[in-house]
C-alpha cells in the first residue's frame, strides 16, 4: 500500500467547508419547505374532481418521479434563466445556486405529493362529513381538519425523506455549486489532497445522517408507544 495521508490541509479548509455545509443545509430547508408546499398543492390537485386538474398533477408527478434528480437539475439550470429573461425581458444571470433551489423544490414536490395524498386518504371519510355538517366550508375542512392530521400521520416518512434529501443535495456537484461536497472537491483539487477531503466528507455525512436517522427512529417509536 502506497498511501500517505496528510490531514494538515483540513484546519485551513474548515471555514470554506463550513460555508459549503451552510449551503447544503439551506438547500435542504428550501427543498423541504418548497417541496411540502408545492406537494400539498399537487396532492389537492390530484384529489380534485376536475379531471383536467387531477390529470395535470398526475402527469407532473409521473414525469418528475421517473427522471433522475441530476436531469432535473440540468433542466432547471437551463430553463430558469430563460424563464426569468422571458418574464423580465432582460438577461438576468442568477447563478446556478438559485436554479438548484428551484430544481430541488420542484423535484421533491412530486414525492411529497404522493406522501401527502396518502396522508389525506388515511383520514377517515366521516371526518369530512362531520366538519361539513358543523358548518365549515370545504377549504376550512381541508385546512383545519384533514391536512393537520395527514401531515402528522406522514411525519415519520417526511423526516426519513429529509435525510435522503440532505444526502441528495450533494448532487449539485454536477452544476459546480459549492455545497459541502463541492467545497471538499475544490479544496481537494487545489491542494491535491482529494483522498483526505473525500474521506473527511464521507465521515461528516455519515455522522450527521446516522445521528439524524437514530433521532427519527427514537421519535417514531416513542409516538407509537404512547
Amino acid at each position: 500500500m502506497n498511501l500517505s495521508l496528510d490531514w494538515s490541509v483540513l484546519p485551513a479548509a474548515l471555514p470554506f467547508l463550513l460555508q459549503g455545509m451552510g449551503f447544503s443545509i439551506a438547500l435542504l430547508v428550501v427543498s423541504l419547505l418548497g417541496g411540502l408546499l408545492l406537494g400539498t398543492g399537487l396532492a389537492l390537485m390530484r384529489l380534485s374532481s376536475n379531471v383536467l386538474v387531477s390529470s395535470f398533477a398526475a402527469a407532473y408527478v409521473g414525469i418528475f418521479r421517473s427522471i433522475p434528480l441530476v436531469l432535473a437539475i440540468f433542466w432547471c439550470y437551463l430553463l430558469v434563466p430563460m424563464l426569468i429573461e422571458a418574464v423580465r425581458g432582460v438577461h438576468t444571470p442568477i447563478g446556478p445556486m438559485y436554479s438548484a433551489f428551484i430544481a430541488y423544490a420542484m423535484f421533491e414536490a412530486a414525492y411529497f405529493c404522493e406522501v401527502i395524498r396518502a396522508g389525506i386518504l388515511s383520514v377517515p371519510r366521516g371526518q369530512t362529513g362531520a366538519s361539513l355538517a358543523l358548518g365549515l366550508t370545504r377549504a376550512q375542512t381541508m385546512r383545519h381538519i384533514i391536512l393537520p392530521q395527514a401531515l402528522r400521520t406522514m411525519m415519520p416518512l417526511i423526516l426519513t425523506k429529509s435525510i435522503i434529501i440532505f444526502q441528495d443535495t450533494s448532487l449539485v456537484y454536477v452544476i459546480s455549486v459549492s455545497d459541502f461536497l463541492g467545497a471538499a472537491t475544490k479544496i481537494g483539487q487545489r491542494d491535491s489532497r482529494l483522498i483526505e477531503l473525500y474521506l473527511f466528507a464521507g465521515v461528516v455525512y455519515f455522522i450527521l445522517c446516522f445521528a439524524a436517522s437514530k433521532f427519527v427512529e427514537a421519535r417514531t417509536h416513542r409516538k407509537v408507544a404512547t
Partner: protein
Amino acid sequence: MNYHWDWSVFSQLTITTVDRYWQWMLSGLALTVLIALLAWMFALALGVLLGIARTVPFRPARVVVGAYVEVFRNIPLLVQLFFWYYIAPVFLSLPWQAVINTAQPVLVQTVTAVLCLGLFTAARVCEQVRAGIEAQPKDQFSAALALGLKRRQAYRYVILPMAFRVILPPLTSEFLNVFKNTAVVLTIGLLELTAQSRQVGEFTGHIFEAFIVATLLYFLIAQTVSRLMGRLERRLTIPGESGGGR
C-alpha cells in the same frame, strides 16, 4: 422566446461522421439500462443474503450486517461513487493497480459504477427483506420447525416465499430508483443517458430536444418497469391470501 426548434438534429451526422445523433442517445439509453440491470441483480442477490443474515439467531452476523446497512445508507451515493472510483484503488496491491490503469477506462468506470450502485442498493434491499421476514408471524417458523424442516428449509420454503410477496411493491420502487441513480455515474465520465443527451445538446445546440427525448426515455423506462413488476405481482398473488399484500 426565440428558440429555434429542430427535431431533425437527431438524424444528422455527428462530428465523427460515422454515427448519427440518435445513435448517441440510444447508446446512452443502453448504458443506463445495462448498468441499472447489472447493479440490480448484484444488489438483489447480496441484499437478500444480508436481509436473511439480519434475522438469524446469531448476533455477530446481525451486528456486522447492521453496520453495513448504516454505512451504506447514511453516506450520499455520490460520495460512495467517488470513494470507489478515486480512493479504493489506492488500497489495492500494485499489480492490481496496474491492471486497472491499463484496462479500458470505460470498462473500469462501468465496473465501478455497477459495484457502487449494487452495494448501495443492497443495503436498501436488505432492509426490505428483513422487514418482509419480520412481518411473518413467529408461529410460521415454529410450525415449520415442528414439521421437521431444518432452519434453512423453513426459510427457503415457508418464510421467504411469503416475505417476497409482501415486499414486492417496495422492491419495485427500489428497482425504479436504480435506473434513476445511474445518472450519478456521469460524474466519473460515463456517457449514460443524461450525459449523452447533454453532449448531443452541446454538439448540436439543440439542448431542449435532447433533454426532452431523455426525459421521455426515462419515463418510458419507469412505465415499463412498473408495468412488468405489476404483472409479476399479479401472477404471484396467492388466491385468498389477503389480496396479495395490498
